[in-house]
């Protein structure tokens, strides 16, 4: 089976993000968590069904270097080929990105394309479905398990509240992964360093078309909460928390 996982970097929320009305200026980038699960699930599917896993890193010109570690990590875990698609674009709209990626992917003959179900920025949650429509192949999101089954896939999809749905999906298809079926594999630092040296990354430039219809008018911070914030020495905070627990008659 010829598998392609999609990986991108997003602003690291542990660091501060500078916000003004027109733009967000992140401090650092990390791999999108759901995409790390997508890569893991792609590798699990390869283990089960055989084949190859290509990892398609999707970046902008200014984040092109930030994905190298994540690509090397995928390589260390067993990815076969690494590709970096460098987008030239003006917006973050997924429809535009999907159109551009579909153009790049259409003659690559992948059986399964696996993005993470959702990135954390605006317009989230739609790339997989849009990519599938642009490529005219089936899409299913919310996957937590993928099995190969007589030339098709059996996919377990989350439906919320612990409930799953089981679906049979014909190939080729796009499958949006929410979590891999097992915890992300740990890669020792020495192996990662080796992968960083060995991994070859093919770079391609992808032109993103502009489509009218929606634009960001402003970014802003959510209103600050009107709650009691306890700050200071941990001892004091512990004392105050005990009082609060009394107030809500837990103690």
């Amino acid at each position, binding site marked *: 089976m010829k598998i392609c996982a999609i990986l991108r970097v997003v602003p690291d929320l542990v660091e501060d993000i500078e916000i003004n009305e027109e733009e967000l200026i992140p401090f650092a980038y990390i791999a999108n968590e759901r995409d790390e699960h997508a890569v893991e699930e792609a590798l699990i599917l390869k283990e089960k069904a055989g084949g190859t896993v290509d990892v398609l890193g999707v970046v902008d010109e200014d984040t092109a270097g930030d994905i190298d570690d994540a690509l090397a990590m995928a390589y260390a875990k067993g990815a076969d080929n690494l590709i970096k698609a460098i987008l030239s674009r003006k917006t973050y709209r997924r429809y535009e990105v999907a159109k551009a990626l579909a153009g790049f992917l259409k003659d690559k003959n992948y059986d399964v394309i696996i993005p993470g179900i959702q990135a954390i920025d605006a317009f989230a949650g739609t790339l997989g479905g849009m990519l599938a429509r642009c490529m005219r192949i089936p899409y299913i*999101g919310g996957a937590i398990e993928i099995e190969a089954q007589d030339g098709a896939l059996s996919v377990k999809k989350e439906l919320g509240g612990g409930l799953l749905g089981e*679906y*049979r999906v014909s190939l080729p298809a796009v499958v949006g992964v*929410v979590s891999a079926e097992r915890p992300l594999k740990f890669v020792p630092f020495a192996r990662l360093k080796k992968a960083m040296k060995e991994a070859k990354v093919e770079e391609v430039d992808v032109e993103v078309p502009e489509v009218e219809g929606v634009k960001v008018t402003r970014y802003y911070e959510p209103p600050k909460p009107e709650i009691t914030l306890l700050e200071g020495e941990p001892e004091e905070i512990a004392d105050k928390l005990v009082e609060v627990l009394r107030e809500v008659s837990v103690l």
Partner: protein
Amino acid sequence: MNILVFAEVIENEVQEITYELVGKANQLADKVVTLAVGEADVNSINSDVIQVEGESSPLNYVVVKKVFEELKPSAVFFGNTLAGIDVAAQFAADMALPIATMVTDVSVDGDGFVATSVAYGGKVMVDLALKSPAVFVVNRGSFPAEDGKGSAKSVKKLDIEIEDGIEFAGYIKPEVEDIDISKADIVVSVGRGIGDEANIELAEELAEVLGGVVSGSRPVVDSGWLPKTRQVGRSGKTVAGKLYLALGISGATEHIEGVKAKNVIAVNIDRNAPIFRVSRCGAVADVLELVPLLIERIKEVKGE
């Protein structure tokens, strides 16, 4: 103006989010039509209803497309759910319509719409201007459900062929475990901020002195530190007891959807963590420092 609402039907039941969407749509539009796929009882939806036979499937974008072409609404509302977004994204792409996701508010603005979305795990809000017709994928809990409940103005049954490619094979029910966090009154919940599997013990100890149970966020469950049955949020369970004590949880939308406890107390080192916005009280502290002290104090108070 017309608005089409795509109902969330799971296991032949109309889900609460549907009423939230219908309520908002009724405020904005003269005519609201709700499209429900499945056998569900649709009589309490406060709008006209079109009911189509079928199952919850990503292929239902085809059904939405057919109804959209007939009705020509100015907007289509979907719930931001695991089923809804599969359909919404494909429908919008297929029709090349503008779409906003993670929406918490929508208003009409001239010929178009303005939507507010949450982004970056709840740390940033975005206002978007969309041309009509547009697609909105709305977060749960953004609008009151009462306004969408009532009695259906009309119910029309339609048969719509959908294409091949995806077949529904059946539901798989949630696992059951000895502890049901959705029934517990006091829940101590751990997030990625707990740092390490070994530290889960701290939460267990705190839960014990408080007489509660331990739950967690998705990353903690994904890492295998807690069983799947202990996950709180969109994909997991909803807690609705007296106290939810969130330790090192950022408060992403998908998590908060499962937090309906009367009192939320959060401990987080980041004073801008979104979890504080839904808390009664927030402690800006390192869980690993604070929790041992807290356990000690509680034991003192209880005279242990």
